[in-house]
């Protein structure tokens, strides 16, 4: 039998989140990483500009970057850049080749794999620098 329940209990008014596939999530990540990198870049250009003012000031600011917290932040930044970069290549291939449109999903997993490999290579060295003597 078919029955209905008044669902006053259902508080979710809004629609469901669209359940896209690899293509959509890669774009979401690409967008988020792009925005994050942009904001970092603003700060990065500003702090680098301090070299023009005085070596002391620059070094003082740099010193604050050398804390473990900032070190982890840098790790996140690099992770974002690496993903954005590899996925950017994937997008370029999709845009320029019919092959790319057919294999975009596979390429997304290749991006993830390459990202993981790169990070595995980078993270230990970077963390050693950050936490090392």
């Amino acid at each position, binding site marked *: *039998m*078919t*029955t*209905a*329940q*008044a*669902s006053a209990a*259902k508080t*979710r*008014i809004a*629609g*469901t*989140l*669209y*359940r*896209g*596939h*690899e*293509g*959509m999530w*890669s*774009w979401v990540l690409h*967008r988020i990483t792009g925005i994050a990198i942009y904001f970092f870049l603003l700060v990065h250009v500003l702090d680098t500009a301090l070299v023009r003012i005085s070596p002391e000031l620059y070094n003082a600011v740099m010193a604050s970057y050398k804390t473990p917290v900032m070190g982890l932040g840098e790790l996140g930044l690099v992770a974002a850049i690496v993903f954005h970069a590899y996925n950017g290549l994937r*997008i370029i291939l*999709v*845009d*320029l080749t*019919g092959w*790319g*449109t*057919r294999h*975009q999903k596979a390429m997304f997993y290749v991006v993830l794999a390459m990202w993981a490999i790169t990070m595995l290579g980078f993270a230990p060295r970077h963390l050693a620098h950050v936490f090392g003597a």
Partner: protein
Amino acid sequence: MSDIAEVQSFTVTFIIRRFNPETDTEPYWQDFDVQMYSTDRVLDALHKIKWDVDGTLSFRRSCAHGICGSDAMRINGRNRLACKTLIKDLDISKPVYVEAIKGLPLEKDLIVDMEPFFAAYREINPFLQTSAKPEKEHIQSPEQRARFDDTTKCILCAACTTSCPVFWTDGQYFGPAAIVNAHRFIFDSRDEEAQVRLDILNSKEGVWRCRTTFNCSEACPRGIEVTKAIAEVKQAVLRGVR
């Protein structure tokens, strides 16, 4: 046939996003438990609800086999045709969520206002333009015909356009369906006005807004390679005609 199906009946919970502009200020979710058979489709469930339980449930449908494009809706968070979504392909241990497609004005329950969608379609000159006056048919080789075969399949269901994250943002983007239909003429060897359509799609709300998220290709019930078609149009704009 019917008897085999009879055996495997089971209860499925459908949670449908309801909205009646005459009485509701906001859409709300409503649960229905429906007795289904494995060969049933989501459209059958909606019919059972409408016919046996609640006649006010409103949705569009006509052909019931995926050819008229009336019943695109969001089923478990993805755009599909209700008449082409088999119950047995869904995970029925969990409730099935059904709601209207996103990005077009909601009219009632699963019905949206399709006018903005068709307006975008009309803007790309979706008709053959040629000065040739052949005595009989135009001559077109099977290869030339194959060039745009894929995009002739479109049934204007809007599943693609309303799955596109760029379309959701402000609704101004032409959307994949309009581009697919432009593609159908741009690459038709008989058409002479490809450049006009390319210029239209080269505009602010044209192909450049596509971020290759592939939701359109995934959503298309006709299996059209939508993103590929869009990429081909982009390249045609860059190169200038075909």
